[in-house]
């Protein structure tokens, strides 16, 4: 792409272009680069600053030159954060919860979406509407009632309760997106399979799911990130006396409060870095898929 292979065409076009336009484009190009670099700095600085601060002492952090590099690169704060902030424990909890909730969201969501998109039966429209209506309801309406419901079934303060609630809250978007997606797939392959004696369920698992892979990947990424970053539901369903069950977002919010009391600021920044680094690594590796997955939700 970068090799200049079309000298035969460009000179003609250059002559057509007015010269003044070219100059203003150059100036504008300069200004636009400055803006882009500024926004890059704005985006990166808080994160870099967090990493740097995890190596500093309190005097360095609150001293006269808070933007300077640390004087000594020690991992002391990282060790303290790992031991006292229980960040490792929260990370493990979150991985477990999100693995189960995303798996069941995708399994149950795609099953419902498939049936709703491919089978005609009484009540199809009603069930679809029931699922999709959930898209327009903010989660705050049912906060008190949800707490009661989860308490009534005895799942308050358990990961099972959180997983079930995540699955339920992820259904509207997952069903909405996948129903539309299954409708775009050709019907002929499934029909041929059924003709050959393939059952309904087997057609779904062995033929339709592999065909729907691009859509499934996008929406899986969407759900993983959404559930990983969820804050309201964990603080509502995993109360303070169940700290061993806490999830990462809860832990982070709590650390920022307790760091103030203990005045271990480097420890706070180290804990924060530990929460950011896994996401950063996953993001750098899968950034294209993540961007597609997250924007897919809005585009449709």
């Amino acid at each position, binding site marked *: 792409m970068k090799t200049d292979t079309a000298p035969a065409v460009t000179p003609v076009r250059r002559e057509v272009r007015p010269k003044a336009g070219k100059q203003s484009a150059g100036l504008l190009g300069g200004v636009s680069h400055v803006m882009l670099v500024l926004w890059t700095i704005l985006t990166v600085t808080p994160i870099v600053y967090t990493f740097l601060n995890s190596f500093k002492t309190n005097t360095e952090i609150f001293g006269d030159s808070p933007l300077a590099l640390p004087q000594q690169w020690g991992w002391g704060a990282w060790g303290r954060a790992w031991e006292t902030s229980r960040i490792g424990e929260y990370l493990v909890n979150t991985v477990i919860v999100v693995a189960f909730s995303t798996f069941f969201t995708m399994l149950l969501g795609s099953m419902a979406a498939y049936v709703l998109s491919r089978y005609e039966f009484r009540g199809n429209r009603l069930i679809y509407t029931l699922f999709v209506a959930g898209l327009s309801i903010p989660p705050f309406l049912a906060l008190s009632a949800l707490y009661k419901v989860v308490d009534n079934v005895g799942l308050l303060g358990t990961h099972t309760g959180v997983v079930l609630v995540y699955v339920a809250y992820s259904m509207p978007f997952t069903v909405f997106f996948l129903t539309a997606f299954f409708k775009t797939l050709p019907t002929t392959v499934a029909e041929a399979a059924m003709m050959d004696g393939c059952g309904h*369920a087997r057609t779904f698992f062995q033929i339709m799911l592999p065909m729907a892979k691009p859509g499934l990947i996008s929406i899986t990424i969407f759900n993983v990130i959404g559930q990983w970053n969820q804050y309201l539901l964990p603080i509502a369903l995993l109360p303070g006396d169940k700290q061993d069950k806490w999830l990462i977002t809860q832990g982070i919010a709590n650390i920022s409060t307790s760091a103030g009391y203990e005045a271990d600021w480097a420890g706070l920044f180290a804990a924060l870095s530990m929460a950011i680094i896994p996401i950063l690594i996953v993001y750098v590796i899968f950034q294209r898929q993540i961007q597609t997955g997250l924007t897919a939700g809005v585009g449709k």
Partner: protein
Amino acid sequence: MRRGRLTPGAVRKWGFIASFLAAPLAIYIIFFVSPNLQALQLALTNSRGISPDFQYVGFENFTRLFGDEVFWAAVRHHGLILLVMPLVTIVIALFFSFLLNLGGGQRNGQLTGVWGSSFYKVVFFFPQVLAVVIVGVLFQAVLNPQKSGILNSVLGWFGVDPVGWLIKPDLALWTIIGVMVWQGVGFYVVLFSAGMAGVPKEIFEAAALDGANRFTLFFKITLPLVWNTVQVGWVYLGIAAFDAFALVQVLSIDRGGPDNATTVLPLEIFRQTFTYYRFGYASAMGVALVFLVLTFAALTLRVTRRERIEY
């Protein structure tokens, strides 16, 4: 579909439909539909906590709500966020996505983005994958009111005295809005870029060939062609303006302070539920929030509806 005749095939089909819908519907109804319906019921009661004893009090919660100053403060804050945050985010994102996709001038007769476009897209999008809680804690350090706060120390180089970003009641909500913009821009840059990539390049090239400068290119050609995407973005940002829960809870002083200067409805609902255990009152507030969100969505869809440009 003929009714009344149950062939083995029909039995299998119905069995299949039922078995595939049972589990998703059950979980959805128990943990989503039923809490929302119960909330409508709770809103009419004086329910406190998980105790099963409560009385119906009619619309008493709502009359109390309309006399509640904090409720109105929260509604005003949503109004300000709704006016400022989506507009600023969209303007910045449109500007950047234009530069990144079409701002690089012609190369081999093709319009390209500026140099390094894909790098910028990767960096700008990153805040979107961070949990809002993490963003909140990050910005506690950035916006520290002392001169050692990162923003204040940068301003210090230019001789500006330390600013109490989050402790000044007049400024705090604007600061929160700024952080929302910071996190949101990258997402909309990528979204609008996808919209611009969907427009055939020939349209831009034809315009550039006719001597259209970049301003014409942007306002007369790019903007109308991605208007649909902008509209969708607007609705999403508008709905986000009625949330802001995690950010305000983590970042603001005293959770919604100073002196309720940054509080939002979701935060008040949370507080009524888990601090005061006023489940009835919290649910009434939830009903008000849903009403506001749906009104906004309906109005926006009505106002911005516009002929789609075919290409």
